[in-house]
């Protein structure tokens, strides 16, 4: 909470504490990478050479890069187009669309994969994989871009248009510079997701480095660790590219616009109808179609001879527990990192913050492997317990939580803390009574984002869950691999159902607009109303790579 006065060169105690805490978090999160290197080293060079330096690896790396590039471009286009249409046109039911358009993200990729593959088994694997991943990652672009657009004043665009600039030129020269940071941040997350995806590619038979790692892991765990080193490098490249995108500090805050009435009307009725049709088609492909296939499977269902290890209720309970606890853990860990980089921006804090993104590029199975290694060798009591699953989720989904926490902390007016302190309120009290309620909505958004993603986690859960424990995702997978689609379908449907509420909540939250130029913080409803903090949550990625002093 301390403002970063740099009146003297010594670091204030707060900064030291935050740096130490942030450092510890970054260290914990990147520990799997370190273990990976040790593990690969233990496997020995001959084994690494056989699996890494050969034609198949090159083919798979090429596959991975091609697909990642395709998905990044497609997700950037779809996400930006959707956000722009929603924010800059008078599409009816805007808030509803926001909620609905982010739902494809909540669909488990492997379910979508199987749905598509069961309908078109002959679809070229690259096309299928690119389509599925675009559908599941464009919301990562859509959310921050929508938020960024909301913060820029459309009047600038109107001025440009008024001066005779064409619509395309206006977009490129006026709008794009303000949102490219948001696009970059979203695309980075999308790239990391694609690099580490497994289930969907297995379903459509597209082979990437990650699917190969999964295969290799089955019989040679240590060589698998070696195979994931190129993935870490790819992840670093993606993070580097994102960091190189120039960000523009959006110096102009949006004037208050409320509801669709304030939005500039775009085009004719026909254009609006087309826009809505495009939205509907996207949601149909990403959500309605796979859900339809699930119902079809249930309808077709013949008996499965495979006994369910976990009933629907037990699996739901486990999924809920794992997701909730890991979401809470992520928020707890992300808070010091976010505070550090907001209040004391420096090379060190930036490096700490960025390093936490690296594990996202590593497949869940590899994070799981390293946790197995660590627990067997150093923390045996934790081995085969649920805590390892939660730890894996926390490592994997940390960046998602950080994005939200960072944004809320960044939007927090520092004066509030100073006022509280001037009233001689204690530090803890200030945090609980002032800070927490203000950043609360952002934390809830972060919680929802991590929760949704965690409910669909498959690969690390497969490896780490204790004997006899199944989540919805792993029980679905168990049935599905035995081709018992009818028995598998209900588990996937529950995943979708569980994701709808936090998904809708996220949509509504991201869609909240600043109420007036003087934010409506009436002291009485302080804890529930913090519009600035909430609206800028999604714009976090935009702030991530702001030039540091």
């Amino acid at each position, binding site marked *: 909470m301390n403002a970063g006065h740099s009146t003297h060169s010594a670091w204030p105690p707060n900064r030291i504490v935050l740096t130490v805490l942030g450092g510890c978090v970054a260290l914990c999160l990147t520990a799997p990478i370190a273990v990976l290197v040790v593990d690969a080293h233990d496997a020995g060079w001959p084994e690494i050479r056989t699996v890494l330096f050969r034609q198949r690896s090159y083919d798979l790396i090429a596959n991975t890069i091609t697909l990642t590039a395709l998905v990044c471009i497609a997700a950037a286009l779809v996400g930006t187009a959707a956000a722009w249409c929603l924010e800059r046109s008078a599409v009816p039911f805007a808030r509803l669309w926001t909620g609905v358009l982010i739902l494809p993200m909540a669909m488990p990729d492997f379910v979508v994969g199987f749905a598509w593959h069961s309908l078109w088994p002959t679809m070229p694997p690259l096309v299928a994989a690119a389509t599925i991943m675009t559908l599941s990652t464009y919301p990562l672009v859509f959310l921050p871009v929508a938020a960024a657009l909301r913060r820029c004043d459309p009047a600038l665009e109107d001025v440009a248009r008024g001066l005779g600039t064409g619509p395309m030129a206006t977009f490129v020269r006026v709008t794009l510079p303000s949102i490219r940071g948001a696009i970059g941040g979203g695309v980075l997350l999308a790239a990391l997701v694609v690099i580490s995806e497994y289930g969907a590619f297995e379903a459509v038979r597209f082979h990437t480095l990650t699917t190969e790692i999964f*295969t290799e892991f089955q019989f040679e765990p240590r060589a698998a660790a070696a195979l994931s080193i190129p993935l870490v490098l790819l992840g670093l490249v993606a993070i580097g590219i994102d960091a190189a995108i120039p960000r523009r500090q959006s110096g102009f805050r949006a004037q208050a616009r409320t509801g669709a009435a304030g939005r500039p009307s775009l085009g004719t009725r026909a254009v609006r109808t087309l826009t809505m049709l495009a939205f509907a088609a996207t949601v149909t492909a990403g959500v309605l179609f796979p859900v339809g296939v699930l119902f079809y499977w249930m309808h077709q269902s013949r008996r499965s*001879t495979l006994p369910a290890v976990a009933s629907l209720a037990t699996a739901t309970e486990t999924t809920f527990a794992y997701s909730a606890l890991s979401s809470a853990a992520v928020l707890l860990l992300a808070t010091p990192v976010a505070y550090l980089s907001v209040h004391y921006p420096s090379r060190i804090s930036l490096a700490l913050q960025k390093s936490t993104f690296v594990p996202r590029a590593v497949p869940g199975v590899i994070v799981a492997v390293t946790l197995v290694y660590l627990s067997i060798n150093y923390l045996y009591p934790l081995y085969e317990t649920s805590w390892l699953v939660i730890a894996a989720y926390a490592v994997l989904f940390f960046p998602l939580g950080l994005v939200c926490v960072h944004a809320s902390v960044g939007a927090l007016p520092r004066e509030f803390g100073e006022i509280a302190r001037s009233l001689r309120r204690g530090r803890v009290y200030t945090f609980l*009574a002032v800070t927490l309620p203000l950043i609360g909505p952002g934390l809830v958004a972060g919680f929802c984002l991590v929760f949704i993603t965690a409910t669909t986690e498959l690969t690390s859960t497969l490896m780490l869950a204790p004997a006899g424990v199944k989540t919805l995702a792993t029980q679905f997978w168990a049935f599905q691999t035995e081709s018992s689609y009818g028995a598998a379908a209900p588990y996937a449907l529950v995943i979708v159902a569980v994701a709808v509420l936090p998904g809708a909540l996220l949509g509504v939250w991201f869609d909240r607009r600043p109420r007036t130029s003087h934010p409506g913080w009436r002291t*009485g409803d302080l804890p529930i109303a913090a519009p600035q903090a909430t609206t800028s949550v999604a714009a976090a990625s935009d702030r991530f790579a702001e030039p540091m002093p």
Partner: protein
Amino acid sequence: MNRIIISNYRRHVIVAGTVVFVTLAGALTACGKPSSGPSNAELTLYSAQHQQTTNALVNGFTKQTGIKVNVVNGDEDATTAKIEQEGAKSPADLVYTENSPWLEQLDQKGLLAKVDASTLAAVPKQDSGASGNWVGVSARISGITYNTSKLPAAQLPQSIMDLANPAWKNRIEIAPAETDFWPVVSSVLHTYGQARTLDWLNGLKSNAASNDNVPSNETLAADISQGNTDLGVLNQYYYYRLKTEVGANAIGSQFAFFAPHDPGYVQDVSGAAVLASSKNKEAAQKFLQFLTGQPGQTILATSDSFEYPLATGVPANPQLPPLNTLAPNAVSVADLGTGEDAKALLQQAQLL
């Protein structure tokens, strides 16, 4: 005034805090439940076998002896890797695999204990490990599963070597990452040697095109039945299990053997062992005895397993042709070894 506002905050904070606390407490209790460890009287079995059959076997055993068995299911390669990683700390007492090479691998690393002589005597000697550290439980035969409307029986290949011919381009699917495929590769290697086996694998890869790494045997069986491809090389039971699941009317495939003694016609053994690190060896030996004795073998023969029981005097599922009428290639469990050579070839052919 200030106080009123503050108390208002406080109320909100308390309410929000309570909600978060209750949610997390609920999650914690849900989470803590499954992690209660097994007591000493219980056995832990790492099983890579068909889950349905394993469950039936375990239930039969518990009913007979009163000893509870915790089953941890997994693929056999992953299970083997897990046991090797856990080493002396492994919570497992028993391991049950689908194919012999994985037991041989564990045995080579000194991780298995001697099987009781009376248990070994229940099945033919050549179907257990030469060291006497694992015992054979059931037999499985590889062959052709084909789509009956895409491929008339008369056009079936006689040899697995034929499948590398360009005539089968885009008409086959393979699942080389599935360990059932490895004994077949070892058999071809044993029969024709390194160079020819590699050529053959390259041919298969080219013919299977984008379906050269189907995720599982069950998926492959379903693909064939649905007509996504003409044929695949699978063990006999995948066809029978799928038929049981979807019903005889809905299945579009059929199973056939290759010509007698073809390298694609392989009998492999599924077996079980007690781990050297087990602290319940006595009870674990009882489980092996149950598996290979009349009660266990009968469960195998009458369940949805469709594998061949190994004990003499226990007839196989009547849907299967009797084991003694079959003519597989002459490769022994010892010839198949640890499967390392098959793996190396599959890697050379860029299939793994």
